[in-house]
Each structure stands twice: as structure tokens, then as C-alpha cells.
């Protein structure tokens, strides 16, 4: 049976691992290669690197970091941050990434995802959707935000995710901007709405504080994978502990130990 995936996320800036709280305060959390090796040993199913300070000046730093990581761990690597054009995708794939996450550029250039999926294959293209609730729980909806949650777009997040999936994105990396950094759990109604609307894989992100939150994202949010950063970075829980907990809840996971 296909296992639900547990994905540690490493936010990186200038080649170092960092973790922000609601995308603002940045705390340095270490060396990307060391972190990748630690997660590999713990049995992580995949790794995601998001460059939160991406710019053209530090592109080479990111490529170098990805190729260093790819030489040390043999598992799927997703890389995102500042991906604007097909040549950025190509550069990251050549550095050793398996999947490329596109966020802002997909919104400003809606053909990018279709072109990228045709050229590199759906399985390599991830669209990151950063969603924030607009209005109240009864009459509201979720809207897409860009620039690390600072700029509203007017796009309905569920409809946008469906369009990106139809355009060929193999995976939707769905982050609740409301939940991110709170440790109060994923936005389950958002996660479920997107999971039920799209045909591609959905990775739930933002808000994990406990192991039960991971179970909620997979069971109640119907996500195919769950992503978390700080609970793994700061050693609150290991990947192995998370998987044992999920297995005990009857959720299919890959136990490596």
C-alpha cells in the first residue's frame, strides 16, 4: 500500500537552514547537509528546501547547496524559492533536485506551470499555494498570497490549486498562512477542500505542533503527505517517533527502523 509521506521542510537563506515564525523572525538552525543526513537516518520520506531569501545574486549558492545535499542523501528532494522561469527549473534539476516548487511566478505567469510540466514532466512540478482565510468561517473562503504571505492576489486558493493541478502540477504544497508557525495544527478545512478538488498530490503545511496534528492532516485533511519544520528541527519529535505514532493510528507509513 502507498505510504503517506512525512516531509521535513528546511527553510534556507544564503545556504543556511533557518525557520521563521509566521514568516517574520528568522532563527538560524544549521547546516543543510548535516540536517539532510540527520533526516535521512531518521527515515524521512522526502526533503523540501525552500529558499526564503531567494534572489538572482544568490542563485549559485542555492545550486551549490542542492548539489552538496544530493551527493549525501539518496531520497527525493524538492526545492523552491525564487523560481521564475524554465531556466531556473532546469538549473535546480541539474543541481540534483527532483521536484521544483513554484509559487509567485505561477501567479504572475500562469502559463509557466503548463510549459514546465510539458517540458520536465508533471512529476517534477510542484505548485506552492500560500492561503489565508478571508471572511468568517461560514461565509469566507481562502485567498492566495505571495511574497511569503505579504501580498494578497484576489485568487481563490481552492480554485487556483485545481487550475494548477489541471495545468500539470503533480503536487500542490499547501500552506495555511494563518496556521503557519502557530503550532496549533494544520488548517484542516482548507486542506480537505483542496485535497478533494484536485487530482494531484497534496502536501499539507503550516502549523504542526504535535504528532496528532500530523494524523489530522492525513486523516481529516485527506493530504497525501505532511510537511513540518520546527518540530523536527528543534528535536521536539523525530521522524521515527512521528511514524510510529501514525502507524498506531492506522495510517499507512513506511517504518524503516
Amino acid at each position, binding site marked *: *500500500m*502507498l*505510504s*503517506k*509521506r512525512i516531509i521535513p521542510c528546511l527553510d534556507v537563506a544564503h545556504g543556511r537552514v533557518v525557520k521563521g515564525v509566521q514568516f517574520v523572525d528568522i532563527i538560524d538552525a544549521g547546516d543543510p547537509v548535516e540536517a539532510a543526513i540527520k533526516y*535521512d537516518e531518521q*527515515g524521512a*520520506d522526502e526533503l523540501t528546501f525552500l529558499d526564503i531569501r531567494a534572489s538572482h545574486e544568490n542563485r549559485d549558492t542555492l545550486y551549490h547547496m542542492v*548539489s552538496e545535499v*544530493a*551527493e549525501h*542523501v*539518496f*531520497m*527525493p528532494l524538492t526545492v523552491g524559492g525564487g523560481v521564475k522561469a524554465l531556466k531556473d527549473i532546469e538549473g535546480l*534539476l*541539474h*543541481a*540534483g*533536485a*527532483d521536484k521544483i516548487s513554484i509559487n509567485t511566478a505561477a501567479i504572475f505567469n500562469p502559463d509557466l506551470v503548463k510549459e514546465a510540466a510539458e517540458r*520536465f*514532466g*508533471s*512529476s*517534477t512540478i510542484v505548485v506552492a499555494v500560500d492561503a489565508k482565510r478571508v471572511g468568517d468561517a461560514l461565509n469566507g473562503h481562502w485567498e492566495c498570497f505571495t511574497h511569503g504571505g505579504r501580498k494578497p492576489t484576489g485568487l481563490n486558493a481552492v480554485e487556483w490549486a485545481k487550475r494548477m493541478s489541471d495545468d500539470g502540477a*503533480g*503536487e500542490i504544497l499547501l500552506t495555511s498562512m494563518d496556521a503557519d508557525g502557530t503550532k496549533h495544527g494544520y488548517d484542516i478545512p482548507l486542506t480537505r477542500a483542496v485535497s478533494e478538488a*484536485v*487530482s*494531484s*498530490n*497534496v502536501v499539507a503545511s503550516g502549523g504542526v505542533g504535535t504528532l496528532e496534528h500530523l494524523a489530522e492532516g492525513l486523516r481529516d485533511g*485527506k493530504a*497525501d*503527505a505532511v510537511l513540518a519544520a520546527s518540530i523536527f528541527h528543534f528535536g521536539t519529535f523525530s521522524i521515527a517517533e512521528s511514524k510510529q505514532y501514525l502507524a498506531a493510528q492506522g495510517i499507512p507509513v*513506511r517504518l*524503516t527502523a
Partner: protein
Amino acid sequence: MTKLALIDYGMGNLHSVAKALEKSGASVDLVQDAAALQHYDRMVLPGVGAFRDCISALKKTGLDVAIEHQIRQGMPFLGICLGMQALMSQSYEFACYDGLNIISGDVKPFPESHPKRGFKLPHMGWNDVVFSSERDIHPVLAPLQGKQVYYVHSLYCVPEKPEHILAASSYGDYPFACAIGRENILAVQFHPEKSQQAGLAMLKSFVEWKP
């Protein structure tokens, strides 16, 4: 040290496959030139992307003929993902396209109804490798017993002869061949180069395999 040709037909990134094969004990060269293939001890055909582009790139470079020739000469062959699908007679990705026809059978997409039933496409993630209890486990695949491996695909191989199926997996109640082969040919749907220790152990046994 075994000299391994990693066949480079200009599609996708071969970095991970090359590094994983080196880690498994091979000396790896990217080979684009059909005439160079004969100088190696074994070959790997990797691949991500579209079936039609893969076959046309292999034909344009003459690599299709060189691969077939070396297979007939007994050189151990490993196909990975699209490199497995390329071996089949034809693929039904978008339309019907001819493959290399080294193993007879078809390549078919998972049904479009899969996502509605909660089985998202592509089939992406860690899934089983199931061996038949009625035959011996292929020596190269032996390290995968009881392990899960990493898959990323929307199409799967349906070999005409059941004896060519070496292992199976299943997705959304659809069983599919995850490893096929005969004699010196072995091909897998999953990505050993992305399957951590289990995948590296399989690659090591391919590097040491004497069919």
C-alpha cells in the same frame, strides 16, 4: 571496478543516478555515443519525461540499436522508470507510440477515475515490492524484500508474458509490474537511486550481478 555506461539521451538529470551507482561501487560514465557503449561492462537506461521523446531521442542517436545489440551480446542491462517503459512494444501515453519492443507488452496509464477515488496521480511516494511465492526472487532484487521503494509515475508496464514479471506492486486496487526482465535484462518502475539504503543495496547487487 565495473565500468558502467549511464545512457544519456539528453532528457533530465542523471546526477542522482550517477552518484548512487558510484556509491554502489561502479565507475560511471555518461554515454551519449552509440559506438562507445561496447566498451562497458554493464549499462543503465534511466529516464523521466515523455515516452515519445525518449524513444525518438534514442532512435536519433542510434542508441536504440546499440542497446539492443549489447543486450544480445549479454551485457547486463538495468532500466529505471521511463527506461523500463521504453523496453515495451508500445505506450498509450496520450496516443499510441512504438517502443523498443525488447520485452513484448504495453505501457498503460492508470485510469482517470483514480483521483476521484482518492488515489492521486501521479502515483508518487513509497510503495511495496511484492514477490511471487511461486518462483525464486531475482538476485538483484533480493535486498528489497520487505522494503518499500520510491515511485513516481502515471503509466505502468503490462508485459505480454507473465514470466517476464519479476515483482509487482499495486495502486488503487490496480496491481502493476514493478520489476520485469529476462536473462541479462532487468527493469524497474521505481527509483532505486531515490530509495535510500534499500535502493542503494539493489544497485550494488546490479553492479555485482553475473547473469
